[in-house]
């Protein structure tokens, strides 16, 4: 668990700095940490706000990025079945890539519902608090750093670091190449539609590549 918490520190700081320097303002930038609580979608939203994208494009892009939570929710549902309705409504707010990964691994060795619930709460709150502190600190720092430092470059660097482990399989690599290329070609499209069209093309290409490989 500790390495996971340390691992999100650079993401949190990088997001905070980007949000602090963004024209949308540090207040709203930081508020996304509470309201959205999903790093990649928060980073993409700030980048699109900066580029002047329309609300519809920003919402569609962020929700495509966060659609992976459907998968996590489906995988966690059998383990959460015995929790009270209150817990089943409250706990999903804490669902993140990291909280999902550690919990689903832990649930292979634990059967007791109470212990399962405690573990998810512990992991989720640990990650939530770490995210709030690092994005908050980053926002304050970002607002006071001159633009010539090019700290906005930390955003693509974070995405790049997240991208590398996802392209280990051939369909994953195909999805990335198609998604990235379409986004580059479509970069001049109005409303920043290039990003969402690129993303959807990449997803389609990945599914086709997986089908061909079978």
């Amino acid at each position, binding site marked *: 668990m500790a390495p996971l918490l340390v691992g999100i520190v650079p993401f949190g700081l990088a997001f905070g700095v980007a949000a602090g320097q963004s024209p949308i303002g540090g207040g709203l930038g930081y508020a996304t940490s509470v309201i959205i609580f999903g790093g990649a979608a928060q980073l993409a939203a700030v980048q699109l706000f900066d580029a002047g994208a329309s609300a519809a494009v920003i919402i569609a892009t962020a929700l495509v990025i966060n659609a992976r939570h459907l998968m996590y929710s489906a995988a966690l549902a059998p383990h959460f*079945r015995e929790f009270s309705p209150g817990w089943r409504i409250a706990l999903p707010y804490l669902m993140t890539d990291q909280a999902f990964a550690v919990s689903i691994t832990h649930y292979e060795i634990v059967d007791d519902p109470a212990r399962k619930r405690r573990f998810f709460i512990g992991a989720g709150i640990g990650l939530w608090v770490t995210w709030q502190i690092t994005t908050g600190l980053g926002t304050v720092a970002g607002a006071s750093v001159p633009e010539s430092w090019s700290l906005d470059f930390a955003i*693509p660097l974070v995405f790049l670091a997240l991208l590398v482990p996802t392209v280990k399989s051939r369909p*994953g*690599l195909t999805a990335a190449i198609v998604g990235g290329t379409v986004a580059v070609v479509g970069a001049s499209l109005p409303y920043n539609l290039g990003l969402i069209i*690129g993303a959807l093309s990449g997803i389609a290409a990945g599914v086709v590549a997986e089908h061909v490989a079978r």
Partner: protein
Amino acid sequence: MSPWLTVIVIGTGTYLTRLSFVGVLGARSMPAWAERPLAYVAPSVLAALVLPAVLLRDGGLDLTPAGNPRFLAALAAAVIVIRYKSVSWSIVVGMAMLWLLQWLV
């Protein structure tokens, strides 16, 4: 739509995807046709975010160190994350490379 409202809509939509199976759909499993596309969300979205940011400068393709130092800096960061699997160091090296190139050219 105001930026605040946009963020609230994203937050609500995100929460509903998290809630979906745990809260409403119960323990029924995810249909395979839905699961397969989701596996490719991460690589395609991330590449669609990264590539335009590091390959394009003022709307055009530019890979020269003088015109677009971000491309070389991103390459350096990619090497670090592939070779050493360290996210923190890849960000540090990428930023340092960008500053060095901006100072040199």
